[in-house]
């Protein structure tokens, strides 16, 4: 891959990236969330088109039109979220899109044989290929996906965070399979946050940071500290305003919180006038912690205390108690895109009979204060840019005048200008004596805006530390469990 560039609106996701993968190697691709790994792999697999750059595959220029094209040419992607049809059998899944048939009638015997051969190559012999894959455990389903790559005779296999939902024993099994594939002469691209795994099974590695290739090396030649510093490798600049803050009394107290899904054990104290950051990998349970506090996920045990109110509650009650939450997913959960800006901002505090004049005035006020660029408060939120949508979502919390703000990835996928506005807002809120709990995958942002940071690792929330007493490398190490 040579000189790959990709922009999304104002964001540069990939900037002139060069990369090469060789036959018979396991190549690690590392970088923080948002460093461009996934985008790069989506270019490789034909899911998106690069703006510039060329890819050469087996000596031939290669430009897939779509994922199926890429699969046919021998490039297979195995994503974090499994891409299997749960109602179809193993054999049907493995041969999906390239069924063996004559005049549309599937040749079941040959299909079964092909599937069993592929599985055998991976050292799996005792699997009934006729049962629906939904009856199989997660780890086996992943092997089925890899078998799909084998059946296609793929020359490049990309594994995107393959171990994030596996147990230790399953991870060992996966590693064996990866080694078998490598010995067969495939090039394997291994994306993972867990550095110990990379040390174990990868031969070479490439580090991406902010869409730039910052170096490649033989894994055997570098130690964990070097990898981490390559991943971080930047100084925290001045776009993060942080005034002198004086934390007051405790507003939110969480003790030994155990959610039905996640987290397993989380305790924290959030004070008036401070910003507390939660770092951690995707899927470590950060979002679920927030949802448990806000009453969107159910809680198994543990204590939640907000001001003088104790116990769990539904979102409606939380709003009344002065708690507001910003969802990490604007489109799915944050905003009602077909509704107007005014409706979205005032949704939590509507009067039984709405005065459109009053509602419009309120919305205008907060549009001005948060700098939303729009034609009028009656414009549909879906027509705005990502950054402006996010400002609307945050303005909802401000309009409601909450004391505790739960912000899940407040700056995900928005332009730099909007980010700065949001950082400034968070700082102002802390100065006004609000309490802010903030999740972010972008470490510089956490280090720049928060007073204290805690790290979530596999459902457990670590100790809270003052920002001055920690740094990016320590956080990455704690998040990766190294």
């Amino acid at each position, binding site marked *: 891959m040579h000189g790959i560039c990709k922009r999304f609106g104002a964001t540069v996701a990939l900037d002139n990236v060069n990369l090469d993968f060789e036959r018979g190697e396991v190549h690690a691709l590392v970088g923080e969330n948002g460093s461009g790994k996934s985008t790069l792999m989506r270019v490789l697999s034909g899911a998106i088109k690069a703006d510039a750059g060329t890819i050469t595959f087996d000596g031939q220029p290669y430009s897939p039109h779509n994922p199926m094209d890429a699969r046919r040419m021998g490039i297979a992607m195995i994503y974090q979220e499994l891409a299997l049809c749960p109602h179809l059998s193993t054999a049907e899944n493995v041969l999906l899109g390239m069924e063996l048939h004559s005049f549309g009638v599937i040749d079941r015997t040959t299909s079964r044989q092909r599937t069993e051969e592929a599985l055998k190559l991976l050292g799996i012999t005792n699997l009934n290929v006729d049962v629906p894959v939904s009856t199989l455990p997660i780890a086996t389903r992943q092997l089925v996906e890899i078998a799909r790559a084998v059946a296609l005779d793929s020359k490049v296999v990309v594994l995107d965070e393959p171990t994030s939902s596996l147990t230790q024993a399953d991870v060992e099994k996966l590693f064996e399979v990866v080694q078998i594939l490598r010995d067969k002469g495939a090039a394997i691209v291994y994306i993972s946050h867990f550095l110990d795994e990379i040390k174990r099974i990868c031969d070479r590695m490439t580090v991406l940071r902010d869409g730039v290739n910052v170096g490649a090396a033989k894994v055997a030649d570098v130690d964990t500290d070097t990898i981490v510093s390559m991943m971080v490798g930047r100084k925290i600049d001045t776009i993060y305003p942080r005034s002198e803050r004086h934390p007051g009394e405790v507003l939110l107290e969480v003790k030994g919180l155990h959610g039905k899904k996640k987290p397993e054990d989380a305790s924290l104290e959030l004070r008036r006038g401070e910003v507390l950051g939660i770092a951690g990998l995707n899927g470590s349970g950060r979002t679920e912690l927030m949802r448990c506090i806000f009453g*969107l996920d159910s809680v198994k045990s543990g204590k939640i205390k907000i001001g003088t109110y104790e116990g769990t509650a539904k*979102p409606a009650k939380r709003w009344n108690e002065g708690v507001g*939450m910003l969802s990490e997913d604007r489109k*799915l959960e944050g905003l*009602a895109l*077909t509704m107007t800006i005014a409706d979205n901002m005032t*949704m939590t505090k509507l009067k039984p009979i*709405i005065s459109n004049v009053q509602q419009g005035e309120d919305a205008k006020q907060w549009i001005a204060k948060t700098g939303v660029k729009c034609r009028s408060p009656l414009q549909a939120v879906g027509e705005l840019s990502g950054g402006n949508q996010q400002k609307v979502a945050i303005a909802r919390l401000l309009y409601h005048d909450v004391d505790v703000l739960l912000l899940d990835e407040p700056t995900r996928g928005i332009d730099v200008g909007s980010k700065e506005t949001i950082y400034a807002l968070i700082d102002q809120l802390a100065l006004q004596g609000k309490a802010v709990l903030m999740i972010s995958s972008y470490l510089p942002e956490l280090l720049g805006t928060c007073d204290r940071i805690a790290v979530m690792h596999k459902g457990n929330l670590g100790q809270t530390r003052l920002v001055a007493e920690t740094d990016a490398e320590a956080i990455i190490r704690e998040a990766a469990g190294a």
Partner: protein
Amino acid sequence: MKNILKNSSLTNLLGLVIAWCFIFAFFWWKAPPNFHSLDNFQTMARQVMPIVGIATLGMTCIIICGGIDLSVGSVVAFVTVVIARLLLQFHVSPWVALLGGVVGGGLWGFVNGFIITRLKVVPFIVTLGTYLFVRGAAKGLANSRTIDSPSSWLNDLTSQPKGNHAWYAFWNLFPTGVWVTIVGAVLVAWMLKRTRFGRHIVAVGSNEQAARLCGVPVERVKLAVYVLAGLFMGLAGLMQYSRLTLGDPTAADGLELKVIAAVVIGGASLNGGQGSILGSLLGAWIMTTISTGCSQMGLDNWVEQMITGAIIVMAVAVDKLRLRRE
């Protein structure tokens, strides 16, 4: 002007009006000369407003909220039977019969809403079930016959008022049923736009998860929408009774599809969050214009059915094209 064009709900209504004008002009040209007369307008209003129109009010709320109701026709038939039996066997006053009918509709709405929100079965399946169940119940209640009932003022709700008092001239333009529809439409449109409940309905249909995040009591809103719609179905049943002047368990067959078609032509999205009362009524009005025009041209019923079918698909396709352009 540009701003008006960018406002998608306004362009949608404008598009419907223009479409209606074309259809109307076509029939003016082709159909008998009295097609554009006041009389004919009154006939069309009497045909569409009381039954389809009132049911449309309820259906629009349900569809905006992201649901669907296939049991409309059955509920309407059930209500005609209830009213007829109340009048015939219990000799109640027309007011009580009216109330009984409307409450009966509301009850089935409650059943739909309760199963949808508590047992978490999707609305399509639940109302497909009640579509059969309620039709059966209506037949059982009527012993599979029509029920003749003593005549009362309920019979006059949908017929053209007579009398030439100048004072009443305006009132006498339309029968009571049409006025009830118009008043109901204004109220529901106002409710959807200007009350918390109405905005919650739109929010649940637009993005249920976001509504939940905002503390909207999602389940309660859905249940209330089905009950409200049920009450309108009850009212539509009353109008159906008034037109038939008897209770008929086989009445209003296929009404639900007409009503859904009107709502969809009117610009509502079956994914929820979009739609308007005025749009839905215009949709119903367009369909009536076509059927009246076709019959006055002496065309067979099959022509009208094919045209209506094509119009439904075209209306939604054009809407999609328009949105894609934006």
